[in-house]
């Protein structure tokens, strides 16, 4: 079987600062092993520079032979320079040093140079390399291999901060390093160099920004700019260097004036904490990279210009992956208190829905503040109703637990809040599911809570004399022997609901609350954590999984059909086929049909590298209706791992690597004189050739189309003659 792990989305977008082109029209962002180019005006992607195999550790935009180029370096020492206009590789080079940690292009008039740092013999060594030649100069600075930050001031000097020390090295005399220290407990967190002058900014863990001047003397002068309470995470100088920006975990961008620390301007309430700041060379734009995997481009007056947003990376992925039946989008946790709709077909973020509707509160210096998070999502079969559970676990005081029900409003094409319920359960809602019915009236929703009870809600109409409105109301509450309940599943027709209680599975009628059967076996000792009903011809089978075994029950005979000892961490069911999949604690994948214990597919290698798996789901693909295709082409499994990267287990996809159409972005006078399309009059026009000749197939076609439906022979008999009539027949 040719099942492969395909990388889909995710991964950090903001590990390296974004880089502007010289005219500030484009911004380049490093993402894993590629550089993406975006237009700053529209936020649309126009280029993708590929070729580097490993993770990029640094890149820069510079001029080479008077062309604007992008140069990137991977951690294994591979350096590629692309020409921006044509996307051609100008230079490729592999340096012999491995374990490259940082890479900075030195902006200068002459031959392109770069500053790299790498780990050698347990120490971090700095080196200046010529990009075109095989020359490198070692610097007279080595530091211990702890976390450090580097910044380069055009072609004058560079600065390195690590823990308590700031090191400055001039490019004129690379062997001499100036080192300055601060007192603990403060530690340096980031550094920025003035583009022209000998001024360095450092941020520290106490939230102060220190401006260092006269740095090539033994006694530099310092000035303190203090506003942040949390550690400063990033700094950015304006091009002329008269003001600078700082950002941190408060999600507030601060603009400081270098000569007056009372003059500051704020951009509050960014969607997430700030990771990187970069000012465009012409001072026209500021790029703010935030930790939700977005780059916001703002102008110096802090007006929004554009937003470049990738798959949102939030703090939690508690909701798992839910597939929206209407758009086939993946619904996941997004920013704090929001959920995102991510389209798996074209790998783009569709939209975010703010579920909680509260301000995000950032932590304070010595107390951690919990924000309300979305913890569970369920969507009805017709995609009309969305249920969200939001919770805030408070260690000291009473917690919050809220169930919200949203209805899709067709006119505004978005979800609208319909009902909310406070503290439906006492502790937590472990699972919730809608009755899988297409009809809207008397739809039911079952929530399984941490208070050993499950709640059945139903959709009713409240009627006053003048208005009618839909509302969700509690119908009944179920419990069984004071056993903890963990999961639930509806049968395919919605007439039966299975709820796990301890090591037993119970089935109930959702309408009246009658207990239909209780399934338990002395072999099952651990609490059952997952339960799923089979679909189509296996709808009488019930799959229950715990941390010790997977077992399948037959509901007609009330017997166990088969059981396998396996430590299940995720159990998912496909909506297209009858397949189900389990992912074990040690990342083995089994795809099986409930009717037989023989797995359809199993692998212990596919997810070996991924670390722990947060969530998984079968996502119907575009060809999901083609029953002839293999299961993994109809609905591949999407997996979200601990690195917050989204993968699919499915057929090998090469379409991601197909080169995009190269857009002409050159706006030179000459290029404008070239017409967009050319016709050559010398060429003779060819007549269009059809696949089949008209006369031959026409009779069969007519027979097929015009015969009354009740007299027609079955299509499977006719099909052959019809198709052969349409096959290309050479005259």
């Amino acid at each position, binding site marked *: 079987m040719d099942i492969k792990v395909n990388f889909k989305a995710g991964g950090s977008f903001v590990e390296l600062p974004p880089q502007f082109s010289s005219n500030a029209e484009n911004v380049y962002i490093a993402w894993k092993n590629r550089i993406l180019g975006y237009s700053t005006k529209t936020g649309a992607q126009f280029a993708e520079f590929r070729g580097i195999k490993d993770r990029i550790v640094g890149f820069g935009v510079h001029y080479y032979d008077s062309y604007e180029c992008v140069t990137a370096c991977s951690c294994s020492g591979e350096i590629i320079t692309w020409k921006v206009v044509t996307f051609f590789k100008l230079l490729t080079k592999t340096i012999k040093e491995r374990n490259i940690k940082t890479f900075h292009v030195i902006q200068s008039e002459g031959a392109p140079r770069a500053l790299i740092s790498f780990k050698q013999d347990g120490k971090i060594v700095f080196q200046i390399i010529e990009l075109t030649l095989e020359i490198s100069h070692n610097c007279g600075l080595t530091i211990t291999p702890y976390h450090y930050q580097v910044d380069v001031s055009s072609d004058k000097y560079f600065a390195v901060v690590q823990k308590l020390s700031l090191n400055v090295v001039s490019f004129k005399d690379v062997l001499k390093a100036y080192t300055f220290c601060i007192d603990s407990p403060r530690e340096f967190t980031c550094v920025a160099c003035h583009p022209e002058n000998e001024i360095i900014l450092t941020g520290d863990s106490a939230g102060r920004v220190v401006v260092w001047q006269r740095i090539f003397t033994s006694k530099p002068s310092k000035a303190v700019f203090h506003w942040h309470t949390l550690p400063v995470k990033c700094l950015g100088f304006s091009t002329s260097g008269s003001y600078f920006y700082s950002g941190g975990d408060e999600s507030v961008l601060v603009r400081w004036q270098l000569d007056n620390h009372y003059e500051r301007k704020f951009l*509050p309430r960014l969607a997430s904490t700030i990771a990187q700041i970069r000012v465009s060379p012409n001072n026209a734009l500021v790029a703010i990279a935030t930790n939700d995997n977005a780059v*916001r481009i703002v102008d110096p007056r802090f007006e929004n210009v554009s937003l470049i947003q990738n798959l949102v990376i939030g703090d939690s992925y508690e909701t798992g992956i839910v597939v929206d039946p209407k758009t086939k989008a993946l619904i996941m946790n997004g920013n704090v208190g929001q959920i995102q709709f991510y389209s798996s077909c074209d790998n783009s973020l569709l939209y975010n829905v703010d579920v909680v509707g509260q301000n995000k509160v950032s932590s304070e210096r010595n107390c951690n*503040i919990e924000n309300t998070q979305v913890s569970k999502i369920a969507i009805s079969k017709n995609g009309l109703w969305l249920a969200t559970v939001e919770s805030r676990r*408070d260690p000291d005081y*009473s917690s919050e637990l809220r169930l919200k029900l949203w209805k899709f409003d067709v006119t505004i094409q978005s979800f609208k809040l319909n009902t909310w319920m406070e503290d439906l359960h006492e502790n937590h809602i472990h699972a919730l599911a809608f009755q899988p019915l297409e009809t809207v009236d008397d739809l039911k929703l079952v929530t399984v809570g941490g208070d050993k009870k499950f709640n059945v809600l139903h959709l009713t109409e409240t009627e*006053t004399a003048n208005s009618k409105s839909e509302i969700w109301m509690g119908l009944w509450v179920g419990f069984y022997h004071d056993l903890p309940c963990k999961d639930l599943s509806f049968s395919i027709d919605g007439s039966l609901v299975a709820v796990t209680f301890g090591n037993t599975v119970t089935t109930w009628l959702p309408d009246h609350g009658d207990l239909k059967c209780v399934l338990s076996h002395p072999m099952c000792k651990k609490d059952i954590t997952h339960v799923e009903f089979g679909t189509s011809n296996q709808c009488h089978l019930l799959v229950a999984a715990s941390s010790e075994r997977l077992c399948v029950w037959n509901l007609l005979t009330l017997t166990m059909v088969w059981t396998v000892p396996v430590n299940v961490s995720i159990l998912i069911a496909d909506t297209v086929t009858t397949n189900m999949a389990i992912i074990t604690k040690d990342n083995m994948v089994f795809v099986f049909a409930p009717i037989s214990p023989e797995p359809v597919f199993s692998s212990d290698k596919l997810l070996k590298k991924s670390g722990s798996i947060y969530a998984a789901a079968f996502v119907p693909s575009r060809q999901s209706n083609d029953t002839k295709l293999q299961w993994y082409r109809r609905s591949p499994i999407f997996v979200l791992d601990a690195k917050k990267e989204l993968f699919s287990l499915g057929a090998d996809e090469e379409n991601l690597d197909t080169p995009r159409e190269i857009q002409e972005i050159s706006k030179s006078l000459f290029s404008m004189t070239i017409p967009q399309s050319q016709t050559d009059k010398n060429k003779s026009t060819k007549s269009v050739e059809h696949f089949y000749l008209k006369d031959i197939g026409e009779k069969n076609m007519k027979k097929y189309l015009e015969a009354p439906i009740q007299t027609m022979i079955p299509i499977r008999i006719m099909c052959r003659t019809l198709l052969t009539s349409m096959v290309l027949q050479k005259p």
Partner: protein
Amino acid sequence: MGSFKKLNSKIYEKTTSVITPDSIYWKQLGTPVLVKEFGTVDYINFSPVEPYFFAVTCSVRVQVYNPITKLVAKNLSRFRENAYGAVFRSDGRLLCAGSEETHVKLFDVSTKNLLRLFKGHSAPVHRTYFVESRPQIVSFSDDKSFKIWDIPTEKNILSYSDHSDYIRAGATNSIIPDLVLSGSYDHFVNMYDTRTNQKVLSVNHGSPVECVLFLPSANVFLSAGGTEIKVWDVTAGGRLLKSISQHHKTITSLKLACDNKRLLSGSLDRHVKVYDISNFKVLHSLNYQNAILSMDISQNNDILAVGLIDGVVAVSRREETVKVKKDDKKTISWKHPSKSFQPTVDSVTPCLNHEKETKHDKCLRKFEFSKALDSVLLPYVANKTPQVTVSLIHELIKRRALQKAFTGREQKSVAQILRFFIRNITEPRFAKVLIDAANIFVDTFEDSPLIMDPEIAKLLLSLTQLLKEETAIANDLSQLQGAMCMILAGAAQQKTAAVGANLRPVHHNLIPSIDAQKDLIININ
């Protein structure tokens, strides 16, 4: 970047009923004036002519009240025993009433003279009605019969005795005077046609009938008894159209109002409910302090009189709020630019209407927690919209800032906080947050010299006392709930046992007795 999201106080808001035009209309009736009578009020009837005097029948007399002054205008007390069911004739001049002494009495309202005395019933007569446009009276009696009397001759014309129990309800129709309804404690409502002298229709209400009512068209009638009102279709031969059960105790009276567009029902559960006659949905509900025995509304819907079981008549009168229309004065001020002026500039900057930000939102935005708490502890906010105060306290707890906001307060402000706790901590919707807040309060002020202040100490003591009482109540209630759960579980078990008995094969746990074991027969073939 993102705009500041306002504090959401809706979580703690009371669920309010939707305001409908009907609820506004019925709320205009205002608070009732209470008039004390002797004995229970048996029946109330409004005179159909202005100024809508109403007759209250209670104990041994019928009193006619002036609805405006709420004073007794006439007192008809020529009864030896209890009087029952006094009604006005359609011109308001005559009044007839039944009585314990089995007679039906006809009075002239203006002179209070007894005009006729109809003798013939053998048991108390509870309801009497005039027959519209005929000189006749119908009387419904506890002797299980009802009689039609001719007023001029004082003679009994017709008598029907089909019922097997007391007849306590009846009705005549104003369009077809030949139809008479009788409702009895034997659960049946019968309809008679006096032209054919026959019972036309008989329907089973299901419980003792307390009141019957014709809709004006006479093809539909309603019967009330038990907790249900039933709607019957006459033309379809007594088909049950609808059954309304909105009360949880016996319904005692039915009346039409608002030009027959609304139905009113009074019940022993102390409510008068207003229904839409087209769909019988409840539009409004009026509460009284005691069980309602009778109720009537004047023809212009302005006066509602309700007789209660403790002899109180509650009379409420619609208060017309006259709107004083102010003259539109010409506004000449720099604030109001004249509308005739057309700007002739190149670009116009529109005036942006910024959303108003409340004081506490502004303080929260600027992280001024103490100020924010101050702004919601103002008496106007704390008394009128306690949910705003509670939601701010919740937000401060969430931000771990309540302790900071509590510290550094003066005695007056601390007393304010304590008073807010005392007033609201028992409210279920606030309890969770305020208990947390009170804990933080105690933590903050544990070592503060402020708690030695006599006023603060007093408030703290009363808060403790309140919480003790509350826990005692909660304990009692959970005990009661436990007891109820036992009963419910028992009932459920019996049900399943009953179901099980039908389905399962019967197993027995009998073992053969000693005699049976001894009775051994061995077959030898």
